[in-house]
């Protein structure tokens, strides 16, 4: 009964205050970016506390695949020398 429609999903990101990162909050369906922004305002910004909003066609977002997480993120796992705890300094030396 609900007729098929050619709207596409848009992922919505909002910035709650200047200085804060934009954060994903959900998605809306819309025909174009202008309508997506208006829908996103009505759905995700009914109570102020939003200084900026992004909408991105969902299909434009490319994501990692959880099954590949091991090999994909592996290069970060064996480089302990990127962490401060890898380095030794004499006891008593302050403000390091």
């Amino acid at each position, binding site marked *: 009964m*609900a*007729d098929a429609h050619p709207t596409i*999903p848009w992922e919505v990101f909002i910035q709650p205050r200047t200085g804060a990162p934009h954060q994903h909050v*959900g998605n809306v369906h819309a*025909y*174009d970016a202008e309508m997506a922004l208006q829908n996103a305002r*009505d759905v995700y910004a009914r109570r102020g506390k939003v200084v900026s909003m992004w909408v991105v066609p969902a299909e434009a977002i490319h994501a990692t695949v*959880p099954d590949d997480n091991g090999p994909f993120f592996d290069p970060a796992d064996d480089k302990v020398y990127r962490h401060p705890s890898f380095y030794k300094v004499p006891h008593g030396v302050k403000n390091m």
Partner: protein
Amino acid sequence: MDDSARLLEFEARLGQGEKIEPKDWMPERYRKQLIRMMSQHAHSEVVGMLPEGNWITRAPNLRRKMALLAKVQDEAGHGLYIYSATESLGIDRCELLDQLLAARAKYSSIFNYPTLAWADIGVIGWLVDGAAIVNQTMLAKSSYGPYSRAMIRICKEENFHKKQGYEICVTLASGVPEQKQMLQESIDRWWWPTLMMFGPSDKESANSAELMKWKVKRRSNDDLRQHFVNITVPQAHALGLTLPDPDLHYDEATDNWMFGEIDWDEFWSVVRGNGPCNRERMNARRAAHEEGAWVRAAMEAYAAKQRNHEQNVNGVS
């Protein structure tokens, strides 16, 4: 990895308190149960606009009217949050709406009761939204990330719903005898259906054990219901009104307000479609969808026009 190994890994992740995200492997049954439960929840938000919408034009003053409009608009928004979260499980919201309109999906039975008096708007905000908050606070800790995030947003907004409702009740309770009586009658009508919102008792609930095992739900129906009764009874007393349950009493040993037996025949009858307003709600929902067809057609025509315009500007045929 075969499915049994994946299931072990999945349950181990849940055991460590990890959240499951849309692209993660999950048992088909987990996905199906979530789609069922989340879409029911979204439909409830949408159908829930109807009983209260009934009173927008008759709100007693502008302050109440603005609050009620904002609340009903929130319910629409909450429906959209949850449809959005449900889509992350790989189902289109048009299909979910189809299921609702074809009566293949359920929504909360509480919305199959009529709003007969203005006091009902106060009592719905206080009791019905109060019960929903208890349930949704629990669901905010759900194991499925998008559901949990939607619930956190909803809980933040719903506190106003409960408070505006209770404020209406306080006003009526301190009014003339007729107002007080209207409020008492409304509480008498809504109390038991509200307790039924938490679903069948744990012994009868087909889905509960599985949903709790997978941490979609974190507390059982009976547990949540008892918590709701415990926080609500003192609020009724503060209004100077009674709850329609002769068996209601405080049990010092368990710190609980013990309540009488719920009429489960009524519960199942309303779930199966024979409540006072089941047909009326579905007819209203279908009519709203059909009457909105021209808006969708207009938007589509506008989008097509924009696309043509862009093609002409870019010289692409």
